Every structure is written in structure tokens, then in C-alpha cells.
């Protein structure tokens, strides 16, 4: 037992928490969380943070927590975790099975302007007979379970019809096997088989609906262990069944989940090589002496490579920045053809003796992403520090020396977890890679037009499919470079636009001989009596440099003419990130409108040109 009353230096912290700027506070809380704070200290820090005036607070994250039990104790630890991700938790707790009634009244929930509805249901509360020791007729178990599933489905369906707030469901943990412990295990219809099918049902639910997510609560409990998670005495006494250890881990894991849900995901991972992807130094030890196949170290590096490979498969682009001779590095991939990572997996490589920061900037610009979507991974503390200092926007992951911890370190330090994998994510890596191939041929190609024609580029422009709505929201919220107005929309707003007869949303899909890029552009037009206003016009950065813009603009002109608009009004909102488009309208024959940032194009006097020769455009039917 410790005699020390408290570990933290309250007077010093109080100063920062009350008056410090937000970035300092976030960093401070992050470092506090790396020590295992006592519960009373967690409460104290959270109470200090809650005292800050609203106008100098982090961006709020309004959460409604619908649970079958009391979970208020998560507020302070989750609050701190989210502050370390620069969000301010505003929770509302609704325990004891009120979820069903509330979900059936989406209009009342809409008034709360929630960012997320988080559900935590325990089967002990929802289907008690399933979880006690009584051995029931299997028909009864199935019946009770299917009644619960139907209630849940109905509630979600009702809610979705009236609201677009994200809802996060929890998966269900298999029950503790009591007196049945040694029987029934081989029988397909034991109670746990029922829970498996229940989890499959709610997984389907999350796939069916936009903005319904499944948080794998059961997986977290198995990481920690059921006996450590639950507090049986408290369960019966005050319906607060999760132990203090459980609460702490839940807060940590849930905040990671919310980062994945609310923060833009990293796009590019840049790796060092020696003692990062394999054990040893190729330039000194030689390729054959490296640890990347067998033994404890070899297995550890191999496992790390598998994690990286997995990330690539979910749409993350891989790159190398290493101080080495390129031939040495390539040699390793030849000597170990069975390594999870292949030389071709890396979209861009900078293997030279230059400063890594310069190489990182170079890699980011070649791929066409901002430094804030780049993660740099190195075992060398000095290199890490340098990059941190030179390029503060880059997320730097310092791996340390224990290879078996690398995967965890990487996943904990950067925002890499995918939530739902869209088809675009799967093909993105390939398309980036083919873009790089293209850049190479572009360098040698003399005639730009000839080069573009050689791509066999095909565009499809038209109304979006319902399955593309998630991708539209994703693009609208993360596209910075080729984005004329930088207006961000959420799913509910997009659905409004789709419904409205005065507005029109179209999407652009693209493919060429190197690959299929999927949905790469979004445009939103708003029609007034005489004008067509270009509210949103954006294109994914991975498709830039192919003169697609003029074709999209021509498509807009055609649409506007069809709807008898007399003028096109182009809006332009220049920021630090979209400088690329500063002359887009003037270049395209638009005239600036005096005393505004808008441009206009007269559809009455100007003739429509035809699509350029270097690509093929398919215009899809519009139903409205």
C-alpha cells in the first residue's frame, strides 16, 4: 500500500489546465495518461477541464450513451482520453433499457445535436434467461433471442428513418459457462452458439445501414479477461457491473474507436528499413544475416510486416525513407521472397543519404498528400526527433528496440484503424501505385497530350448510387487540394440535397489502363430561377494531372443548359490547402463578378465545346 497521497503535481497542473492553450493541454493529458493515474486523479483532472469556459474548449463530442446498466463512471476517464485526441466529451447517460423508446423517437434525439449515440447492452439485462444457469429448452432460448434481435432491428430502422446521427452498437460477449461448463460444448445449439448468431445479426445491421457501426466490445473484454472485467458484487448491488480496470480499458479503447470514427485516417506510412522492417543492418551485416525469417526476432519482424501488409490492404500507401544504398535494400527483398512485404508494395522509395525530412516531403508531394496524413516510422530516436522538429505535422512513431511490440506501438500512435472498408479503399493502393508508374512515364514522355491519350482514360459522370453515399461524405470531408469551395457536408445534408429538386449532386468515376479509381469526384449544383450555382466541385488528389476538370465543367454546362439556366455561377473559397485551384475559373472562361469571390459564365452566348480527345466520357441518366 502506498503512503503517498497523490502522484500528480496539482498546483502546477491547475495552472495549465485553467489557462493553458488547447494544444498544450492535450499534450499534457496525453502524457498523464501514459502513467497509470489513480481514479481520484482522473476525476480531479476532469473536474478542472470541465471548469474551462466553453469558448476556450476543445471541439465538443456530444455523446448519448444508451446502456442496459449504469456506465456513468466512464465519463472522467473517457473525457481525458478524448482530450488527448483534442475533443471535449459532453456525455448524456441513459441507463436501464430506455434505448428502445428513445430510438423510436429520432425527432427528440435530433434536437440534441448529437455526434454519436453509443449503445452498451449486456445480455444479462436484455435476455436474462439466456445468461443464468437454468438449462432451458433450446426453442425457448432461440425464441427469446430472436425477439430481442427483432426489437433491436426495429428500433434501429425507426431511428434511421428519422435521423442520421451515427449509432454504435456493441458486440456481445460469450457467456460464462456455469453448470453447463462440461456439457453441450459439442452441440451446435448451446447458448453460446445463440450469441454467435446474435453477433452475426448485428454485424449485418451495421453493414445494411449507413452510419450504423459495430464496436467490438466482446473483443476488448477477451483482451482483458472476463474475470477482471466484471465486478460481480457491484453488479447485483448497483447495476454498475464493470470493474475499475474494465472502465479504464474501455475508455482507452473507445477513444481509439472514436478517433477512427471522427478523425481523418492517415494515408501514407513511411518506413525506415534497418531494425524497423527487419533485424540488423543490411549495409553492415549483409542481407543473408538479417533477422526476418526464423527465431524469436525474425518472427517478430515478420509479424510486424504482416501488420503493415494488412494496413496496405485497407488502403494505406506504403513508402520507404532509409539511409542505405538502394541496391542493398532491394537485395533484401530478393533474398527473402517469402517476407510478407515485397519491394512492389512500396509506392514510393527514397533510399539515399539525404536528410529524412527532405525525403518525407518529397514522398508526400509525389503521392500528392498533405504532411498531416503522413506517418513516419523509425527505430532510431534521433531520426524521429529530427523529423518531429522539422515537420511537426507528420505523425512520428518511434518503435524502440523490442520488435515484438512494434505492431502495437504503430497502431496506438497513429490513426490507422479502418472502420468500414469501402471498395475505393481496396483499390486505392493499386491506383496510387499505378499513378507512380504513370509519373515515371510522364517524366520521360515529351508530349503531354500523347501521354494522356495513352492512358485510355474513361470517365463516368452521373447521379450517385446509395452504396456510394459513405464515399461521398468521405471525399467531401477530406479533399483539400482540388476543392473549389471547401464546404463540408455530413450524410444527412447529402441526403437532403439528393431529395431536393432545386439541387443536384453528381459523382465522377474514373478508370484507365492502370486501374479502376472508383468514385473520385463530387459536384453539387444548386439551381435558382435563372442561374446554376456550382456549390461544390472537388476531385480526389490521386486523379489530378489528367485534365479531367475541363470535362467535368463541360458536363456541368450541359446540365445547366438542360435546366434552362442562363448563367453558371462558380464559387471559389481559397484557403491554404487548395491553392491549386486559384485560377480554375479564369482559366475556363469564367469572368470574375465584381466585389465577390464568385465567377460567372454566360450560357446564352457561349457555345458548348465537345469533350477532349484524350478521354471518353459516359454521362449517366438522371432520374429526377
Amino acid at each position: 500500500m502506498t503512503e503517498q497521497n497523490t502522484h500528480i503535481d496539482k498546483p502546477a497542473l491547475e495552472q495549465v489546465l485553467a489557462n493553458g492553450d488547447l494544444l498544450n493541454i492535450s499534450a499534457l493529458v496525453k502524457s498523464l495518461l501514459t502513467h497509470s493515474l489513480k481514479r481520484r486523479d482522473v476525476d480531479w483532472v476532469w473536474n478542472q477541464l470541465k471548469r474551462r469556459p466553453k469558448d476556450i474548449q476543445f471541439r465538443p463530442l456530444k455523446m448519448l450513451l444508451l446502456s442496459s446498466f449504469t456506465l456513468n463512471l466512464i465519463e472522467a476517464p473517457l473525457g481525458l482520453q478524448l482530450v488527448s485526441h483534442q475533443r471535449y466529451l459532453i456525455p448524456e447517460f441513459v441507463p436501464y433499457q430506455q434505448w428502445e423508446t428513445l430510438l423510436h423517437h429520432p425527432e427528440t434525439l435530433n434536437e440534441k445535436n448529437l455526434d454519436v449515440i453509443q449503445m452498451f447492452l449486456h445480455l444479462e439485462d436484455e435476455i436474462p434467461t439466456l445468461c443464468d444457469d437454468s438449462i432451458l429448452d433450446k426453442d425457448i432460448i432461440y425464441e427469446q433471442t430472436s425477439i430481442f434481435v427483432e426489437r433491436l432491428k426495429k428500433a434501429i430502422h425507426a431511428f434511421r428513418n428519422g435521423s442520421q446521427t451515427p449509432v454504435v452498437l456493441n458486440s456481445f460477449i460469450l457467456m460464462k459457462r456455469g453448470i453447463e461448463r462440461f456439457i453441450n460444448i459439442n452441440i451446435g445449439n448451446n447458448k453460446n452458439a445463440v450469441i454467435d448468431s446474435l453477433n452475426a445479426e448485428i454485424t449485418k445491421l451495421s453493414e445494411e445501414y449507413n452510419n450504423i457501426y459495430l464496436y467490438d466490445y466482446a473483443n476488448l473484454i477477451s483482451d482483458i479477461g472476463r474475470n477482471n472485467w466484471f465486478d460481480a458484487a457491484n453488479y447485483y448491488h448497483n447495476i454498475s457491473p464493470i470493474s475499475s480496470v474494465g472502465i479504464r480499458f474501455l475508455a482507452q479503447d473507445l477513444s481509439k474507436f472514436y478517433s477512427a470514427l471522427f478523425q481523418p485516417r492517415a494515408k501514407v506510412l513511411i518506413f525506415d528499413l534497418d531494425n524497423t522492417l527487419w533485424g540488423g543492418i543490411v549495409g553492415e551485416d549483409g542481407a543473408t544475416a538479417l533477422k526476418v525469417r526464423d527465431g524469436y526476432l525474425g518472427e517478430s519482424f515478420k509479424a510486424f510486416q504482416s501488420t503493415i501488409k494488412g494496413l496496405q490492404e485497407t488502403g494505406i500507401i506504403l513508402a520507404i525513407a532509409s539511409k542505405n544504398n538502394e541496391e542493398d535494400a532491394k537485395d533484401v527483398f530478393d533474398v527473402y521472397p517469402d517476407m510478407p512485404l515485397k519491394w512492389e508494395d512500396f509506392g514510393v522509395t527514397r533510399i539515399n543519404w539525404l536528410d529524412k525530412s527532405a525525403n518525407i516531403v518529397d514522398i508526400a508531394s509525389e503521392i500528392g498528400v498533405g504532411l498531416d496524413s503522413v506517418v513516419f516510422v523509425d527505430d532510431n530516436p534521433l531520426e524521429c526527433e529530427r523529423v518531429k522538429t522539422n515537420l511537426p505535422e507528420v505523425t512520428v512513431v518511434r518503435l524502440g528496440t523490442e520488435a515484438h511490440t512494434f505492431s502495437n506501438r504503430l497502431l496506438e500512435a497513429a490513426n490507422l484503424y479502418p472502420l468500414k472498408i469501402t471498395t475505393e479503399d481496396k483499390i486505392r493502393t493499386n491506383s496510387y501505385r499505378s499513378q507512380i508508374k504513370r509519373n515515371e512515364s510522364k517524366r520521360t514522355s515529351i508530349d503531354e497530350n500523347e501521354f494522356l491519350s495513352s492512358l485510355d482514360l474513361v470517365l463516368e459522370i452521373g447521379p450517385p448510387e446509395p452504396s456510394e453515399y459513405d464515399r461521398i461524405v468521405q471525399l467531401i470531408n477530406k479533399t483539400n487540394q482540388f476543392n473549389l469551395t471547401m464546404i463540408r457536408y455530413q450524410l444527412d445534408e447529402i441526403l437532403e440535397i439528393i431529395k431536393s429538386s432545386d439541387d443536384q449532386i453528381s459523382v465522377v468515376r474514373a478508370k484507365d489502363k492502370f486501374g479502376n479509381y472508383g468514385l473520385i469526384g463530387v459536384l453539387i449544383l444548386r439551381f435558382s430561377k435563372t442561374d446554376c450555382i456550382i456549390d461544390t466541385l472537388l476531385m480526389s488528389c490521386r486523379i489530378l494531372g489528367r485534365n479531367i476538370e475541363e470535362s467535368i465543367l463541360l458536363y456541368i454546362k450541359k446540365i445547366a443548359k438542360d435546366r434552362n439556366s442562363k448563367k453558371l455561377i462558380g464559387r471559389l473559397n481559397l484557403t491554404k490547402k487548395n491553392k491549386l485551384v486559384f485560377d480554375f475559373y479564369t482559366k475556363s472562361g469564367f469572368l470574375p463578378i465584381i466585389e465577390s469571390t464568385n465567377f460567372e459564365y454566360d450560357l446564352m452566348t457561349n457555345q458548348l465545346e465537345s469533350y477532349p480527345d484524350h478521354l471518353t466520357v459516359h454521362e449517366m441518366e438522371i432520374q429526377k
Partner: protein
Amino acid sequence: MKPKSKILSQVIEVLSDVLDTPTEAISAETSPDTNESWDSIKHLNIIMAIEEEFNVTLSPEEQMEMLTVSLIADLISEKVNQ
């Protein structure tokens, strides 16, 4: 033996952190009736913080007895000095 006075002041400090009330405003007589942030949810919070602070486990019966600061201190001193 840990003196009871020391336990009392330590309990007051824990409650001060959890209830966001200055230590001077908490006495041996403070209870849910005299401190308005001490509601049933905060009571769970206090139990969790106290259990951790003194490395003890509190049974449901004991949790219900913790109705004033001095009762909490009595209970803890009994448990840690067994």
C-alpha cells in the same frame, strides 16, 4: 497501525477530488445531504476511488454504510488496521 486521523484526512482529499469540492469545505460530518454533488452516481465514483486509494474491497453492505465522511474513515481504518 495507520492513525485514524491520517485516514480521515486522506478520505477528505479523495472526496475533494471526486466531488470537485475544496478540502476545507469537507468535514467529518459531510454527507450526501450536505454536499450537493454527492449523488448516487458520485457515490459509485467515491467507492471506486476509495477502494483504489486504500487498496481495499468494499462489500455492498459496507458501501451502503458509507453515509458520512467519518463513517467512511471508520470503515477504512477498521479494514486497513485489521
